[in-house]
């Protein structure tokens, strides 16, 4: 049994580090999703939802006034913020909700950090008539109160998780506990490219449409491929989604931007690759922020969606083989990039996506005016107005 490679490995990363109780559900999910991937009925239904519900294909927007601050490079945004529910998350959720019904399950659960995945899941549940429970760290329910209300209005139950650091990782812990107890009738729609196999691969497959569309759109607009594709990386689903179609394009740099928080030396960050130590969390082997004993360290970021101590295993693999590179943007640099896009282009990005913008400002200056950069604008910033207003002193509250 140990001589054969386990499914779902990306080099040494990935795998299935979960209780035996969940193995049958993971095997069922893997079988159902593989059948669906070649089933015209499933693909047609998903395509119809993309076109008539989500609003795909999402457009691209060239942002010259922003790009003037990026060394004069051309900068093109992939507008996942314009999707229904306001982020890329809906791509994955609609597909997993369809799979939930195919498996004969009537309930869907999810974790959420910023609330984007929770809102998307609650939306899909409402659309398809599924019961829905969303787990969210208590700290995150406070900094994303508006999204909590959105999920409730959509009919979901929202559970504020008060264990541990009360953020995304603790929400995942609680969702896993729910799943083990209710796996007969419940699907756990993991919101990013992590977790036990087949989640990392499956979620990437459901998001790869981002890169497929964007590659053609950039070719149509500019007649060439971008020099770099830039995306923020929390768990890493929007990044895998836009990277995947470009992996074979050797001349295209793939650049992930992690949350640098208050700086690496402060210890208050979520820059897993800045430390780069492998470990197991939530079912997958990947790079992990951990102490000497292997206890998970608490991450920090101004953006709840990047506030996670591990990262999707395929990212760790792409880094190890040198195909993708990872850098980080601090809270400070991110908020400046956030404000810059608002002021120069009239687009309010999610704080998560603002990390990618901060990365683009750096990369543009490094590559100069001949460079063409494609940036995944993974979400819109309406949900972050409270944080931004406090940060910039626009309302009477200490930041």
């Amino acid at each position, binding site marked *: 049994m140990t001589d054969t490679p386990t499914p779902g490995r990306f080099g040494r990363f990935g795998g299935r580090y979960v209780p035996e109780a969940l193995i049958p559900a993971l095997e069922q999910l893997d079988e159902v999703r593989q059948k669906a991937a070649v089933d015209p009925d499933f693909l047609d239904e998903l395509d119809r939802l993309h076109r008539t519900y989500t609003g795909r294909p999402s457009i691209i927007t060239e942002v010259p006034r922003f790009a003037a601050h990026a060394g004069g490079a051309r900068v093109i945004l992939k507008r996942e913020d314009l999707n229904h529910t306001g982020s890329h998350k809906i791509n994955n959720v609609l597909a997993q909700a369809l799979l939930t019904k195919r498996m004969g399950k009537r309930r869907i659960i999810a974790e959420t950090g910023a609330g984007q995945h929770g809102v998307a899941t609650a939306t899909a549940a409402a659309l398809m008539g599924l019961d829905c429970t969303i787990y969210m760290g208590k700290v995150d329910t406070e900094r994303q109160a508006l999204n909590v209300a959105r999920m409730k209005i959509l009919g979901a139950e929202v559970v504020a998780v008060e264990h541990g650091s009360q953020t995304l990782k603790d929400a995942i812990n609680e969702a896993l*506990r729910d799943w083990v107890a209710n796996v007969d009738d419940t699907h756990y729609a993991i919101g990013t490219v992590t977790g036990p196999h087949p989640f990392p691969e499956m979620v990437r497959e459901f998001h790869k449409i981002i890169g497929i569309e964007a590659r053609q759109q950039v070719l149509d607009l500019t007649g060439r491929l971008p020099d770099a594709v830039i995306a923020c990386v929390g768990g890493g689903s929007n990044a895998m989604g836009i990277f995947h179609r470009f992996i074979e394009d050797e001349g295209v740099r793939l650049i992930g931007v992690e949350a640098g928080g208050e700086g690496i030396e402060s210890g208050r960050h979520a820059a897993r690759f800045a430390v780069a130590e492998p470990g*197991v969390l939530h079912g997958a082997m990947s790079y992990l922020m951990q102490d000497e004993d292997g206890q998970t360290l608490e991450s920090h970021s101004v953006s709840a969606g990047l506030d996670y101590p591990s990262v999707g295993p395929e990212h760790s693999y792409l880094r190890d083989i040198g195909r993708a590179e990872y850098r980080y943007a601090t809270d400070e640099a991110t908020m400046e990039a956030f404000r810059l896009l608002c002021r120069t282009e009239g687009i309010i990005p999610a704080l998560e996506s603002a990390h990618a913008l901060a990365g683009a400002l750096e990369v543009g200056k490094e590559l100069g005016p001949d460079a063409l950069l494609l940036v995944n604008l993974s979400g819109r910033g309406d949900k972050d107005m409270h944080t931004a207003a406090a940060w910039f002193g626009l309302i009477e509250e200490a930041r």
Partner: protein
Amino acid sequence: MTAIGTAAGTAEVLARCKAEGRAALIGYLPVGFPDHAGSLRAMTTMVENGCDIIEIGVPFSDPVMDGGAVQRAAGMALAGGTRVADVFDAARTVREAGAPPMVMTYWNLVLRRGVARFADEFAAAGGAGLITPDLIPDEAGDWIAASERTGLDRVFLIAPSSTPERLAAVTSQCRGFVYAASTMGVTGVRATVGSAARDLVERAREVTDIPICVGLGVSTGEQAAQVAGFADGVIVGSALVSTLFDTDLEAGLERLAALTRELAAGVRQGQAQ
């Protein structure tokens, strides 16, 4: 593979219990709870009052398989500065008290120390083996090799959801015993231990001769007796842990001793029922 544990392992104890016509009592407590010294005294108390095997828990920051009681205890242990290496102290203490010490640990703590190093250190401290709730045999190549080399028992889990193929695959990789989760869910006290546990044990018996110990949900002597009627061992965690909450240590240890005696009497009634 049938159970052949080492002379110092759990197989010998389980065989002795079987010869006595009863199930074994396996008690769980996290090291460092309520504090380091207190946890060592508590484990000794559990052995002296009738636990045949001790499962030493290692507190982990993200205990996804645990319910409220064990989460709370692990949190207290971590807040008190408990380190992974403390498990070796606990192993020596349990061994001196006269029971085989097993360690129950989330896998990243072993990975981080190094699988071979952890196995060597635990064996040197008198440890009997590892119970690995988030490691399936498919991912356990390094650990199986270390276990073969050191003679430590390796206990994987089976669950009510396990298919016949998985039951066969998992039990064939166990040594010492297999841990049968009585229910789909996390650790914690339950009012009843349902029929799922009996069904699971019966299904597992069809594919293995290895002793089968049942955990999750047992809290009383009556439940222990019920489970002892069909299992080779009864594993109790949250109920024992809970005796040490919200009390001074001496009073807690008395409660712990009393519950252990009740459970020990239970596993001796089971076979007679």
